[in-house]
């Protein structure tokens, strides 16, 4: 069922002298031997990974200066080792009308065309031929090759090459280091985020706990209103005590007496008896000096005072 939708991908052979291609859909690219360096070597090492670690030194002194990528594949008891320039190949492919986005896979001709039993023309000037298991390019005049190389129906191997698009700017190791740094940074920031969320939850729980511990009302508005009421009562009591202190500490003549004191509905009233006409001025001056906001009336030797709290 899925095979029905499987896309048919064309395969092309690309040499530095190939003409430009008109690519409409993705293609597999077989690289000509002119685009890479290859050696067949025999090493007393069984692991391909260990061979790959030695590749740079195995090509030392044989390559022109530049930034290279390396690859190795096992071939019987030996290894094919490759050196290639990612940017050079990608630029060349782009020049030939093959953008990176249209490349399905890249392969070395060395791996894909080893089965050639005779020389094949790749253009009017060059042929490709297998000699001692090595694929080489020769001028056409050296051979009697008549047939053009056809790669359309070729069955490709699993040895796909990965071209690093930014390898010339920054090497892969640095990219992975940067990635690792970002991942570490991401983990740190995420951890801090989780810790902060946890702290918020704990604070919220402490706040809820404070409500039950202090038997507070359900909302802060109710509690603020409650505190306001308490404060008003408290301040009024302080004011009442101040007024009583002022009234009781005022020196009076022996004939002058406080006859009545009352406090009700925020109103403090008192009356003085035994006052002669004009004595009230002394008391008024005293009250004013103590900043009491009062009203008073004098009637039949009795002086009535009212102070609002």
């Amino acid at each position, binding site marked *: 069922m899925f095979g029905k939708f499987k896309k048919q991908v064309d395969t092309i052979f690309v040499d530095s002298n190939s003409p430009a291609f008109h690519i409409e859909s993705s293609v597999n690219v077989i690289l000509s031997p002119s685009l890479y360096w290859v050696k067949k070597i025999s090493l007393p090492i069984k692991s391909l990974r260990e061979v790959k670690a030695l590749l740079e030194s195995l090509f030392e002194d044989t390559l022109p200066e530049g930034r290279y990528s390396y690859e190795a594949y096992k071939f019987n008891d030996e290894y094919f080792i490759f050196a290639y320039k990612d940017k050079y190949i990608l630029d060349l492919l782009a020049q030939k009308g093959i953008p990176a986005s249209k490349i399905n896979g890249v392969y070395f001709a060395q791996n894909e065309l080893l089965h050639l039993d005779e020389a094949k023309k790749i253009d009017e000037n060059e042929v490709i031929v297998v000699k001692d298991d090595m694929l080489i390019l020769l001028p056409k005049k050296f051979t009697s090759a008549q047939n053009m190389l056809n790669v359309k129906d070729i069955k490709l191997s699993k040895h796909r090459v990965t071209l690093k698009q*930014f390898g010339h700017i920054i090497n892969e190791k640095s990219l992975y280091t940067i990635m690792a740094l*970002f991942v570490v940074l991401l983990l740190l*920031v995420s951890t801090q*985020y989780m810790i902060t*969320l946890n702290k*918020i939850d704990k*604070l919220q729980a402490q*706040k809820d706990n404070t409500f039950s511990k202090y038997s507070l009302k359900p909302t802060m508005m109710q*509690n603020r209103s409650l505190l306001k009421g308490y404060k008003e009562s408290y301040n009024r009591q302080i004011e009442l005590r101040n007024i*009583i202190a002022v009234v009781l500490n005022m020196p009076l003549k022996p004939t002058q007496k406080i006859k009545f004191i009352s406090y009700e509905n925020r109103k403090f009233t008192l009356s003085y008896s035994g006052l002669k006409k004009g004595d009230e001025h002394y008391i008024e001056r005293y009250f004013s000096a103590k900043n009491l906001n009062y009203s008073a009336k004098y009637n039949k030797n009795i002086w009535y005072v009212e102070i609002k709290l």
Partner: protein
Amino acid sequence: MNRVNPLHIIILLIVILAFIIMKLNKAKEEFIDTKSSYNKTVVLADKIKGLKSSYFNKNRVQRGIDQILRSYILKDSNIDKKVTNYSILLTSKNMNKRSLNFLLGKILNGNYIVSELQINRLNNQKASLNLEIKW
């Protein structure tokens, strides 16, 4: 090419990092707000608790008044005590100067809410009293 470009992964990581940093900043702001709100709640709760336990606690007020009334100085003052749901009413039709001074001194220097007070001078030595204390 099918291979995922490492630079794209780095850009993706930067976007994720920026998103989490943004979330972290919001969480930090929320944390500061929650902390401020918690501190305000604790301060408010302390104030309410302080005033409530000092002035508005029924049991404390009743115990305090009972203790004052048990004093031998007030023995002859015939103070009548009436307790309602919200207050204690103390009345005396005839109490001497010493008892009045003692009682008022204790009440006014203590943590009591005096909601009503009436002192009527009867003569040089005696007075009548009406005093209501609320909680």
